[in-house]
């Protein structure tokens, strides 16, 4: 489990070059709370399952960089922001509801 500190990129082993179908995801957290950790693990799981290889996750800790909260209009923690593909989508919560996460990310679930 990687510690959630300043900006970090997590890439899976078999990464493909970013294309139109790739997802740029930013997870905003506020310190290492159980909920943030839960959200991160949920996120990774969902991405592995449904977006294998076509995603990039960035973790932003607002306790370290509070000024970033205003830029992306972050209110709730945790918030997942899909910046690519456009339009911008926000998903708040610990991402425990996979269905809603997929709807929010506008991802076709892989059966």
């Amino acid at each position: 489990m990687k510690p959630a500190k300043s900006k970090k990129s997590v890439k899976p082993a078999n990464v493909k070059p970013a294309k139109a179908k790739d997802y740029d995801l930013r997870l905003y957290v506020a310190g290492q709370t159980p909920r943030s950790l839960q959200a991160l693990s949920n996120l990774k799981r969902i991405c592995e399952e449904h977006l294998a290889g076509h995603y990039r996750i960035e973790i932003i800790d607002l306790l370290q960089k509070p000024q970033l909260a205003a830029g992306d209009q972050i209110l709730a923690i945790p918030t997942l922001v899909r910046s690519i593909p456009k339009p911008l989508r926000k998903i708040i919560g610990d991402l425990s509801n996979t269905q809603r996460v997929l709807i929010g990310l506008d991802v076709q679930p892989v059966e």
Partner: protein
Amino acid sequence: MARISRELTSLPKAPTGIEGFDEITFGGLPQGRPTLVCGGAGCGKTLFGIEFLVRGATKFGEPGVCVTFEESADDLIKNVASLGFDLNRLQRAKKLLIDCVYIERNQIEETGEYDLEGLFIRLASAIDSIGARRVLLDTPEALFAGLSNMGILRSEMRRLFAWLKQKGVTAVITGERGEGMLTRHGLEEYVSDCVILLDQRVQDDAVTRRLRVLKYRGSTHGTNEYPFLIDRKGISVLPVTSIGLNHKASGQRIASGVAELDAMLGGKGYFRGSSVLVTGTAGTGKTSLAAHFTEAACRRGERAIYFAFEESPEQIARNMRSIGIELSKWIRKGLLHIEAVRPSSFGMEMHLVRMHAMLHEHNPDVVVMDPISAMIPSGSLHEVGSLVLRIVDFIKARGATGFFTAVTADGDLASTDLSISSLVDTWLLLQNVESNGERNRVMYVLKSRGMAHSNQIREFMLTNRGVKLRPVYLGSGGVLTGSARVAREAEDRREEIARRRDERKRELSLRASMAAVNAKLAALELERNRYKRELEAVAEEGSAQQKAVLSDQDELRASRGIAVNGRVKEQEPNGPKGVS
């Protein structure tokens, strides 16, 4: 500035700098606590909060953070620019920080548990970056619109206000009025230290804004509804005017502008700081008296405000020019300000607040309201009476002299609809007198507290050199004025001339008689003198004769040798010898 009493409370307060509000609350909002400001749409909640921040930054050295949930920063800045608040400049000076929080409902998907820590982080960062002591949240109810998990929202709201308290900032939270509740989503549950209610009402086609302190924990506060207005200087709340009747009473006298009137008022004029009422039917000259008074004040270098309810400033200036009063030069010098407004333009409270604000801004020594009775059609008698009472109070409290005119109905001259007559110190009454096919005006001093005043009726004339008062003619037929008086005076003069002529004639004739008598006396005197002389002559003759007789006798005796004068003369021996 009114004194702010702090004796009654030990709760520290943050002064808002909003005109009148700090007086109602005896110091301002509770420091370090959140205050809820609620009201319908367009009541002025946001402006209240913004002014709180702006004054805090500019007057009290407390930077502020504005978190807006509904408007964009640009819109907000534009909206308050008309109040004279330059938010851009304050932001550049790091006295103010605006953060806009958007919740686009269609952008958000809620999946599982979350909290609003992001908001807290943003707030904390904003507050810390400029060292803010004041915060405005306008309005957190938008969160309820954007997010659907009520449980989370409520608990986060509670946490937010506790967090604000702990941070030690004085916060203003706005909320829109709900059905049966103070706010749509029950913010009043969380913000319980102080609640302010703003209201906007349309009454008789005029909009009135009112403010009420619904709740203020730990402090006394005025509990009434206070009218307020929003203008280019921000919000002005009208506090209760002078709680007690404890005005100072000056002994100084000021001229009325009409010399004969001053003479009627104990020789010196009105008391400074008193209130004067002039009543009369239409067209009797009340405005002229008001103009004289105003001019006299300006001549002394004092400032004056003239509230006109029926005529425009130019019209008044023109009309007064025709009687020799030049008001426009005082306007140019900035000593006189004529404020003309139709009574129907505003509700009663709005008038009061506007006047209050103007008196505050212009700081006059003399305030004229002409005519105060014009207010009656636009408000109930009670309202107008209350307005007048408060204005009179307020003017007195400032030590200014108030001058009011009122139109009365033809029949009942010594009573006014407004019962203002018992409030004022001096009451001048103008009356029309009809006789001989013409109308003339008379004036008298009905009352003037604190001074000996004339009880004589004077004829009131508007000449091209101003108002002139002349004693009326009290003839056998009653009071004569106007041409009747002129005629009578001419007749009097003729009579006087005739009388004088008669007198002279009589004088002359008497003198003539006296001269005649004198002449007679002179003649008689002559005669008397003649007789006297004759008498003397006779007496003289008589005595001369007697002397001669005696001397003859003596000679005879002597010749005969008898004693002369008793002495015996010695006879000579040879007998008498001739006569020696």
